[in-house]
């Protein structure tokens, strides 16, 4: 067993996942890879197993956040020191893993985010997504006093302290962990850093966020952030 686990939540990603696993294996680093197959209806689980990685399969679909949390629970159970969450749809670049791990291990950060904007401010994405990211970035700066250039990035490295906190029941959203989780972690005095990362367009299939859903998503996120602030203030008053 190595001390680092790559967690790849996967839902119906049979087309993308073999390439992604190969690209991580090609790094030739001392890493274990875990695919959390979140109740896929295709052969994601079998195909990932055939690539020689560990696969935990949910009997039914629970959501992206819950799949990640299963990975955190497993990492805690097995005593891993570091985890990197890595999307299985091919949008993250395996070459960014070493720099994330380097910063995580040597610079005393609890969470290291792979940011697509750091060192590349002109990175082109859809306008709506750009506005949403900008909005959350400003919100985090106002509420938690930290400048995080890419709060919606799904490429993150976490140390044991951070993923153990996430692995406990109510501490992680079941659907999409996002700016709300970052604000909460900053409130709880976890250190969050960023490294530049490359993101690619999806190789195949449909993205998680699109259309009206993304508008509702922003509202849901606002409520979630508001609750974190409210609970934070309440617990301060109690203690």
């Amino acid at each position, binding site marked *: 067993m190595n001390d680092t686990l790559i967690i790849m939540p996967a839902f119906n990603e049979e087309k993308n996942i073999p390439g992604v696993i190969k690209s991580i294996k090609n790094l030739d680093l001392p890493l274990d890879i875990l695919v*959390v197959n979140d109740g896929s209806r295709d052969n994601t689980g079998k195909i990932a197993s055939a690539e020689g990685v*560990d*696969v*935990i*399969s*949910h*009997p*039914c679909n*629970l959501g992206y956040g*819950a799949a990640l*949390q*299963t990975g955190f*629970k*497993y990492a805690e*159970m097995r005593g891993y020191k570091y985890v990197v969450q890595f999307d299985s749809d091919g949008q993250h670049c395996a070459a960014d893993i070493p720099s994330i791990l380097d910063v995580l291990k040597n610079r005393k950060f609890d969470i290291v985010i792979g940011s697509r904007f750091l060192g590349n401010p002109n990175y082109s994405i859809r306008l709506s997504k750009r506005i949403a990211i900008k909005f959350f970035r400003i919100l985090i700066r106002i509420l938690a006093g930290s400048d995080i250039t890419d709060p919606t990035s799904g490429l993150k490295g976490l140390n044991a302290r951070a993923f153990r906190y996430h692995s406990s*029941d*109510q501490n992680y959203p*079941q659907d999409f962990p996002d700016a709300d989780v970052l604000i909460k972690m900053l409130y709880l005095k976890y250190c969050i850093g960023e490294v530049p990362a490359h993101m690619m367009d999806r190789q195949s299939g449909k993205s998680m966020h699109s259309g009206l859903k993304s508008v509702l998503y922003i509202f849901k996120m606002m409520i979630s952030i508001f609750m974190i602030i409210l609970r934070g203030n309440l617990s301060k008053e109690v203690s």
Partner: protein
Amino acid sequence: MNIQLRLFIFVCGIMFSLIVLNLLIKKRISEKNSLVWFGLSLCIFILSAFPSIVDSAATLLGIDYPPTLLFLMSILVVIFMSLNHYIQLSVLNSRLKEMTQQVAIINFRLKSIENRLGYSEALDEDINNNIGKGNDGYE
């Protein structure tokens, strides 16, 4: 309120209590959850016995047409119960999530152990076949 209507409401109350009691006996609802339904049937009884309560309450709240108060109250009760169901659903959902995650992890660990022990599907079938054969312990 005429006597027929009062009688009708009273019968409704009785039917309602009997349904709740029946569900309780069959263990289809828990004692704790039955409280609110018994409370509701008690309200129906009280209303059929003293319909003037509605009139006085309506006057107190400044409602011109007393029956609207009844509708208002029923809608509020329904909304409250719906909210209560949402709460229970959320609780069940988070428990289900936890269970599913645990089952997935345990399944994975079980398979790893089986692989390490060289436990194949053929062996699995073998064991299943043997369960049926020569096992007359329960007969």
